[in-house]
């Protein structure tokens, strides 16, 4: 009998396209002089940890594939195209060529369906993979040598309330965990989003001019620090409990449900999150963190 699948790491991986832009990978058409090192170096550190973990696939939940009718899963083995950020096209025009673990996607879709969640496989070959998926996956695994599965974010916060979204994202997380266990695969979960999410509506002439980068306001910062403090203490349930308030007060990108999905899939960890860096990008608050269920490899990073 095949051994049980498991979640080997959960990552909170924000996706400002600025970070890819600042890194100047060959896939991106724009050129930068750098910027946002605190986040980029944090990402590089987490990417090195991932290199030492044995895993089969990355499953990523993104707020930039927004579906109002249920939760959708990427359902074709390959996608190759160019992703142009609709908000920051000056920074992000990325030529991607990625593989999808369709078998795992289908299994998670089935489990979600059994849990009463509205689902759909996405099998249109012209579909463009969203820039949240591409940014987070590129920074976590610049070699792109593992298949991924993208899960769309259902817009329950806007349609109903943050509480409904939390219920739904939690149920989806538990369903995905069950499917992963049954698949026999070793999977890295990625929740792709910022924390506080108020943007400046103007951009510096040189976007990477770090003398102009700062958090939108102090209230956003204080809230972000509160969340990070709870994560450090291993209080993931409390993080979820104050999420509606946090999301409302800081227009946080947690409204998509990624973190709730991931925490539920991981059984609401009571151990400390590994913290890799916090920095603002065009005013938004961004944290890189991971949850390592393995007591022997879990680190105190920052």
């Amino acid at each position: 009998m095949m051994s049980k699948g498991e979640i080997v790491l959960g990552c909170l991986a924000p996706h400002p396209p600025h970070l890819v832009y600042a890194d100047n990978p060959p896939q991106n058409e724009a050129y930068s002089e750098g910027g946002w090192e605190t986040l980029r170096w944090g990402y590089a550190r987490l990417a090195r940890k991932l290199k030492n973990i044995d895993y089969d696939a990355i499953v990523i939940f993104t707020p930039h594939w927004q579906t109002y009718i249920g939760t959708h899963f990427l359902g074709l083995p390959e996608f190759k195209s160019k992703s142009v950020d609709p908000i920051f096209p000056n920074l992000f025009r990325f030529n991607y060529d990625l593989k999808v673990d369709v078998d795992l996607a289908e299994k998670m879709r089935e489990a979600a369906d059994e849990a009463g969640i509205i689902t759909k496989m996405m099998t249109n070959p012209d579909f463009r993979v969203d820039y949240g998926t591409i940014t987070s996956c590129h920074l976590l695994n610049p070699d792109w040598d593992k298949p991924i599965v993208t899960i769309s974010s259902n817009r329950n916060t806007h349609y109903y309330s943050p509480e409904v979204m939390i219920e739904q994202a939690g149920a989806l997380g538990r369903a995905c965990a069950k499917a992963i266990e049954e698949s026999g695969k070793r999977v890295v979960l990625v929740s792709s989003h910022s924390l506080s999410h108020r943007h400046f509506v103007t951009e510096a002439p040189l976007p990477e001019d770090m003398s102009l980068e700062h958090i939108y306001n102090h209230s956003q910062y204080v809230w972000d620090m509160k969340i990070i403090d709870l994560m450090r203490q291993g209080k993931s349930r409390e993080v979820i409990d104050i999420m509606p308030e946090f999301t409302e007060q800081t227009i946080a990108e947690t409204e998509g449900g990624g973190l709730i999905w991931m925490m539920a899939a991981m059984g609401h960890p009571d151990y400390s999150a590994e913290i890799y860096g916090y920095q603002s990008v065009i005013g938004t608050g961004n944290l890189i963190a991971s949850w390592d269920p393995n007591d022997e490899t879990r680190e105190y990073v920052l």
Partner: protein
Amino acid sequence: MAEEMNEPEILFGIYCPPHPHPLLCPEANEGYGKLRSAYDACRKRIEESEADLILIYSTTWPSIVGHQIQALENPVWTHVDDDFHYLGGMPYDFKIDVDFANGYASAAEKRGLHSRTVAYEGFPIDTGSVVALQLLNPDNRIPACIVSSNMYANRAETIVLGKAARDVLAEQGKKAIVVVVASLSNRMFTEHIDEVDDRIHSQKDDDWNRKILEFFAAGRLEDLSQLSRDIHGQIRVSKVVAYKPAWWMAATMGQHNNYAGEVLAYEALHGSGGAVITLTPTDGSFGDKEFDEDDVEFYHGDRDVLDKGML
């Protein structure tokens, strides 16, 4: 006359829905077919008009860094909708009026707005713009301009953005068709449905939609603009801060109620309210609406509207 006053020449306006069904599966539901026929009627009117430009404001193109304006001369791609990908891709090959786009961005800047053009191969043109342009202007007979809807912008910014469009239309002397791509009520069903069973999500949404359509049919664009906040509170899912399309449309076409309105179709699109409406500026309807001013520039005294009523 329009030239003397340096007023823009707006031939007519179109309000139409963003969802792809009328383009991709008009046969799936009788209502989708009616919306498609209404789009086709608008296409014909555009063809018969002397328009130099189709100017589109799309609620499915959100921006953050100011007001973005499409400025790539020939964007070519195959667009796929986030939700309705199973209905098929939407190949497009558009002709954009780059001069107008640049003019619009600087007119917006002159009025204190932050604005920028985007001209990148592969830029993801939104579903609403693709649907509208494909159906209204299939052979690119007339060049287009597409402007985004800023997520954080509220009434003041949106009205000024419309006025900036007037500035550049007048300055460049272009005759325009003004297109707003937006639902009426925008709540969709959150489950997949059989298309033949489509209907407006709720009675309340339907009631409000029909009231809005009465205003459109009477040409009361400015009144709709004034009602925007009520409409937002009543029948709009709070994805953005406000219901802005009537603000932009009124500010662009002229902030008054002197239009000939025609509702060509009103149908459900996965639960949301989809309507194809035309508004044509007219001077024939001055003073026939109870709360209207005869002249917004000069006070001619009390109109005694109530004295002329049935009492």
